């Protein structure tokens, strides 16, 4: 077990770990968003199925959250360009 991996394998493992880390980050965003959107969209006692309005609320919630995030970045950039931030 004390034998080291050869260089090619080390590289492969590094790439693999990078990819897994990116995946983990994405999974954690999805977990966070599930919580946010659950609170916004599922207001009553949970039923046997989701209503179609609950389903579309959840999907819209994700897209609008990402829209907001992009919008915020734009706003900050604009403010910075106008010298609003020093």
């Amino acid at each position, binding site marked *: *077990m004390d*034998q080291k*991996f*050869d260089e090619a*394998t080390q590289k*492969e*493992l590094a790439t*693999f*770990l990078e990819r*897994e880390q990116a*995946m*983990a980050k*994405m*999974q*954690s*965003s*999805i*977990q966070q*968003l*599930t*919580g946010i*959107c*659950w*609170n916004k*969209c*599922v207001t009553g*006692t*949970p*039923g*046997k199925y*989701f209503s179609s309005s609950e*389903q579309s609320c*959840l*999907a819209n*919630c*994700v*897209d609008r959250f*990402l829209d907001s995030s992009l919008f915020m970045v734009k706003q900050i950039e604009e403010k910075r360009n106008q010298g609003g931030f020093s």
Partner: protein
Amino acid sequence: MAARKEAMMNAVRQEMALQNAQELMNKANESCYAKCVTRPGDSLSSTEQTCLSRCLDRYLDAFTIVSRTYTTRIGKEREARDPAALS
């Protein structure tokens, strides 16, 4: 060596899947407890149990919907930024 590499990768994958499942269960429990057990009594009533069981199912549904929407959107954003990098 190849076997050792595979074993290592599988261990990482398993650990990731476990973490993800645990986090999902924790969040589902938190959300559903808040929704279903509004005034804790001596034990879980059958109404509370029915609510918890349905709530868990819906939470998993919500995770699936959010997951699908999120990955679709990320794919679109990536495509818009770099149309050549479609893999």
